[in-house]
């Protein structure tokens, strides 16, 4: 009710989504016309259209896919899947064992204060310069959001559901797969959405700092060699994938909550 009232609310004849779209259009127009009109130095910031053209060229370039985009996407996917699977399992274990949860709780809440990127050199020493340290860092960054989301979901299961499961004398596996996971799936999906973002951030950051391939490295290399058009094209591709993945997850969540409300 409240949401629909806000949707019907208007300022200067425009609803909230239209204002957001208009703000975006203003920013995009500035990125195009600012450099063209000389308001911004066109070397420092090339016009948006030339960035998009370069990004499109890169996206159809097989060498770019092979050397940069492919490894990055693969690393993000593996890091995300690893964080998702192990995060859910860790969440279940911590929920089950109170002492372990008590020990982990303070560290889970301040985990994102720890600059995990600083571990990258150590991971390189242990795992070598390959895809593995990049994946590990992405997974390390993403896993805690899945653990905390799983714990939140499990904490919110009604006592009556747990009592019912006990009365049915389900096996542990059935209890987890038929009661716990379905009851917490909404919170887990929210955690997975964050985990995907953190996987992208972790992979990009490790590639950017020290790697010798991947999209993060491509941007870093282009910046170091003053290929600013390439650098901005790389950034545009990263933004496209990061925001696109986030949008798709948002859509999934929205559909799910719509289904639950009907």
């Amino acid at each position: 009710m409240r949401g629909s009232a806000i949707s019907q609310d208007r300022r200067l004849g425009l609803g909230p989504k239209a204002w957001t779209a208009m703000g975006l259009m203003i920013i995009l127009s500035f990125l195009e016309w600012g450099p063209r009109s000389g308001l911004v130095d066109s070397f420092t910031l090339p016009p948006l259209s030339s960035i998009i053209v370069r990004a499109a060229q890169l996206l159809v370039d097989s060498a770019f896919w092979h050397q940069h985009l492919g490894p990055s996407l693969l690393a993000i996917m593996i890091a995300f899947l690893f964080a998702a699977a192990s995060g859910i399992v860790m969440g279940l274990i911590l929920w089950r064992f109170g002492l372990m949860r008590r020990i982990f709780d303070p560290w889970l809440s301040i985990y994102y204060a720890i600059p995990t990127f600083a571990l990258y050199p150590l991971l390189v020493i242990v795992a070598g310069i390959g895809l593995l340290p990049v994946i590990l860092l992405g997974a390390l960054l993403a896993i805690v959001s899945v653990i905390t989301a799983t714990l939140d979901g499990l904490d919110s299961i009604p006592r009556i559901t747990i009592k019912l499961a006990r009365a049915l004398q389900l096996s542990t596996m059935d209890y987890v797969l038929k009661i716990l996971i379905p009851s917490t799936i909404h919170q887990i999906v929210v955690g997975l959405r964050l985990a995907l973002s953190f996987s992208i951030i972790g992979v990009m950051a490790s590639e950017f700092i020290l790697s010798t391939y991947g999209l993060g490295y491509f941007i870093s290399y282009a910046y170091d060699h003053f290929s600013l058009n390439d650098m901005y094209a790389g950034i545009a591709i990263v933004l496209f994938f990061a925001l696109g993945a986030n949008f798709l997850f948002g859509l999934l969540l929205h559909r799910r909550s719509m289904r639950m409300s009907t």
Partner: protein
Amino acid sequence: MRKMAFVATGEPPRETRGAQRTSFAPLLARVLTETLVVLALPAFVFVVWAIMAAIIDNVVFPGPLEAIRGLASDLGREGYRSSILTTIRLLLLSWAISVVAGALIGFGLGLSPFWSRVFATPMFAFYCVPLVTLYPVFILFLGIGEESRVAFAIAHGLPPMALLVMGATSGIDKNLLRLADALTLPWHSKVTKIIIPALVPTLASGARIALGLTMIGLILAGMVSATSGLGHELVNNIANARVARITGQIIFIVILAVIPGLFLRWLEQRLSRHR
């Protein structure tokens, strides 16, 4: 009653139990227990690390003692001590700006459900973007000095702070505000007696999250471009392949991030309980 296969639960979160026990347990015993609980995980990590270092070749993978020795030799350098001070100075500056500006922006937007809705999506999207790939843009526009590092750290800390305060402001019980109107309270009384007390736990939580994120931004920026600071020192040691020092520095950075983080978490819990 709670002990059935995989049914622990329902166990109330730790904080709630702590709050109920506060008046009964002696203060010292409680502080000691809490400290032991907090230190249990790092102690376990150190033990596993020491065992792994003993198994793997020590030159490639230093143990905790080598790491501490490496850190001690770094701390003996004037340049490293100055890097610590630079990082702390920039961290405090960027954190203060993130918290104050984020709180004000979030509060301003949160007062209007309409503008909250307009700005929520782009702010959340900004939070999900790998900002490190945008760091060259910060350098191009602000130069390679401290300004770009501070701006980059603020870009990490400000959006979540603003998002949290925006959500908390729009969630303030409207009946309380109506009551204040009915009592014809002046605006400053409304702010100090209703709005700020309602926002305090969120401000504490936002301050904790913003501290961690500004720290991450600062270390990342230091690793990419700085000529001083802990990020720069880390990259310097990587370039010189000083493994024990790298590990020692990582311990130091983690300690630097964790101590204020734990303190702010404790403060946040206290404020939430008082509320």
